[in-house]
């Protein structure tokens, strides 16, 4: 019973991080800060939620799958964040050059 509360707590924390990430997306001034918020907060949020759900319902196999899913999402988020940032920096630098 108590363990369930623990997992639920984890999921709640995860949701809070998601909310923070979205708030950052909306409020932060420029592209790079928003990228920062998104990649960091959402990844962590996803990890917590995945951990929580794994604890609550998943069988060991499903838990493993959740882990793989999280890893892939994290890596993809990081890389795409990097790509967007690089593209923006290059485009920004070309503007200066003009």
């Amino acid at each position, binding site marked *: 019973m108590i363990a369930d509360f623990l997992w639920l707590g984890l999921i709640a924390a995860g949701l809070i991080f998601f909310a923070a990430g979205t708030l950052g997306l909306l409020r932060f001034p420029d592209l790079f800060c928003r990228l920062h918020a998104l990649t960091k907060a959402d990844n962590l949020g996803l990890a917590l939620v995945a951990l929580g759900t794994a604890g609550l319902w998943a069988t060991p196999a499903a838990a493993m799958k959740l882990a793989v899913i999280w890893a*892939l999402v994290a*890596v*993809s988020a990081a890389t795409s964040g990097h*790509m967007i940032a*690089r593209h923006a920096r290059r485009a920004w630098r070309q503007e200066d050059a003009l």
Partner: protein
Amino acid sequence: MSPPDPYLLLDLGLAATILVLALAALRQRDSFTMAVVFILFGLLVALAWVRLDAPDVALAEAAIGAGVTGALLLRTLRHVGGERRDPAPVPRVVAGMLGLSVAGFATLGGLALMATPRHGTGLIPAVAARMDQSGVEHPVTAVLLNFRAYDTLLEVVVVLAAVMAVWAIDRTIDRAAAPLPYLPGVALRGPIAGAYLRLVLPALALIGAYLVWIGAYSPGGAFQGGAVLAAAGVLSALARGGRWPRTAATMPLLRGSLVLGVVVFTGVGIWAAVAGGGVLHYPPAQAKPLILLIEASVALSIAATLTALFLGHMPQPAARIALRKGTTNDT
């Protein structure tokens, strides 16, 4: 009234978001945002399919409906660079009338749909009764690859026809004059992208194969697996900047992989006929291996075809690629 079941709120919210996203996508000013919103729409619809107990459809919708279509849209937007203002197909007043008639048609359809009770059993008992002879456990795969195998064969033929049509279209463009089909400035270059690809591509291949294998037991199957493999194909194509070396070795290999699915499917079908059962009538004993063979080849074919459709042009002769090397702005 039983207490409002929590899923109800989720369904209402999801349905509303889906409708809003659809309208937003279609009425959006900027075309890039339209594409992104459309991908979001596809993903949420996949979620709706999960809610409606249709996991296979959800997978297909996410992988193909949102993923591949989204990629195609973005690739075309990149190529076309902002939409051309074609003349409106119908003048405003006719548009209004069309709007009214479509709305009328929709309300009538909606009311009629609500008024009609869903058919009690549908084909559930029919499928259940024959599941044991189908050679697989998962009903959707049984339907797709055994009970209505002919439909699926034609479906793979449709995709093959699409590739042929795209290559016929590509043939009409005079390569010298037209801008190069190669995707300038979007190549996945750089240390991080390279590392990412080295990590993700094998994972994708593994997941694709897994999806194809698991299809016999639970949601998954040829098309979903094929779509994931196609994602890997698209990523590798982007890594090389969309350039397809057309050497004597690659062409037959490419054409072979494109037609593999149809060839194996028809081959098995005819073999089953010659072996006495009837076209596509797999002997129950070997049904499982046959279905897996077909699923694997169809998945490979779907992957190759969707990648070819994404690139949208025939592989270019090596000479012409070399010519282009100088002009690629390697970002």
